[in-house]
């Protein structure tokens, strides 16, 4: 059982969720309530990481953030080490490829708030920000929770992109998914089995929470 790798995966997932939570709130809300030309395109772009093969995605990330890119060079000049092959690089990649998992359920959550309830909030004197805090978030939070839970679980399991962008540096970029891969290659089936069981348990827990939350939203709206 590679505890370092598990902890690293949890940290990666935690940071991803922390960064994506405000993104999910504002982007999800924006997409739920605004109609504009090109909205379909924006929604498709948000969903893109979902359908793109992880290796393709990893390749483009390497091109964009690698040692030969302007972003990569800026990063290493500022921080002294490369963005790729570092934990921070994984966080950047993870935030990007989790966008659909974070934004979509959040958008659905905000869409579940009836339009007239929002308008009533405005007519009660609540500014959009106050309405967000007092009316929309309390009603949309199951969608947000689903978004965060899915993002967390998805990050724990991500393999291809992490391997391409992070390498497999113990304690830095060797996540538990990679550790499992590594243990199989090391003929250590027991460790691979243990870690796999842990991941399955976390995934099942995630699905259960998501279903429970969806049922809650369903009950509230009926």
């Amino acid at each position, binding site marked *: 059982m590679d*505890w*370092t790798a598990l*902890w*690293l995966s*949890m*940290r990666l*997932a*935690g*940071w991803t*969720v*922390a960064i994506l939570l405000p993104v999910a709130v504002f982007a999800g809300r924006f997409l739920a309530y605004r109609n504009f030309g090109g909205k379909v395109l924006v929604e498709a772009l948000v969903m893109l990481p979902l359908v793109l093969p992880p290796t393709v995605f990893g390749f483009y990330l*390497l091109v964009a953030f*690698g*040692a*030969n890119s302007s972003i*990569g060079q800026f990063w*290493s000049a500022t921080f002294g*080490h*490369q963005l*790729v*092959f*570092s934990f921070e690089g994984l966080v950047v990649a993870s935030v990007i490829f989790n966008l659909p998992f974070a934004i979509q359920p959040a958008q659905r959550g905000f869409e579940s708030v009836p339009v007239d309830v929002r308008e009533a909030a405005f007519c009660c004197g609540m500014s959009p920000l106050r309405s967000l*805090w*007092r009316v929309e*978030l*309390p009603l949309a*939070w199951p969608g947000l*929770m689903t978004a*965060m*839970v899915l993002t*967390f679980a998805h990050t724990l399991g991500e393999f291809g992109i992490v391997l391409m962008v992070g*390498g*497999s*540096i*113990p*304690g*830095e970029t*060797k996540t538990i998914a990679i550790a499992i891969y*590594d243990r*199989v*290659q*090391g*003929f*250590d089936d027991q460790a691979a089995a243990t870690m796999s069981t842990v991941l399955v348990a976390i995934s099942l827990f995630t699905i259960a*929470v998501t279903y429970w939350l969806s049922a809650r939203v369903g009950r509230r709206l009926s």
Partner: protein
Amino acid sequence: MKLTLSRRAILAAALSALVGASPMTGLALDAPVIAAASDLQFAVAKVAQAFQAETGHEIRLSFGSTGNFARQIREGAPFQALMAADEKFIANLHADGFTADEGDLYAVGRIVIMVPHGSNLRPDSTLDNLAEMLAAGQITRFAIANPDHAPYGMRARESLIFRGIWDDLQRVMVLGENVSQAAQFALSGSAEGGIIAYSLALAPEVAPRGTFALIPAEWHQPLRQRMALLKDAGPVAKAFYAYMKEPAAREIMERYGFALPEGE
């Protein structure tokens, strides 16, 4: 907005995950990372253990295919040393200014044909049985490391070409990312066998799973395994590098089937 128990719990878990400090593991996160070819998976892990026991210093090891590591190093991967399975990669990196110096030859490796228990294939040094079964259409899968970037895969290909069965084996060939994965494929039971590193075949974790035979060294280019410190290598990496040349380390390497260079 009330914070129900479940929301608080998840928030707490998320927040604690951010703290980053890793209380549960013993891994020192400032230990240097050393990239090592997959054939060294068991041997060098043992050496690292001995190194830690003797000096108290820890290192972190990353195993994979030599070619992959060379590419990653060119892209800025933070390894402090590379223990390659083929000296050509070290030479190229040195020519491009990534290594501290030309490095040292630390071992010469061998390849073997290995088959899992219960396989119809019999391992022999001449690969005769393999050729027979291949001609009879009785080979469904045969594993080697990827010859594009793994030195052990390159040598496997050379010996198969030498033996004249490379073309015929193409249809049933399975390529491992590195020689460890090739071994895993070869011994999984889904293949009749494969060509893997001698050091892996000798490892206690692997040996019980099948039988093997050494492939004649004349059938392929030698596996001259060279290691080098990379630019910015720290004192611990340098210490380990030096340790590799010491008797204790050399003895471990010999146990895993490596031929050792004479005091180069």
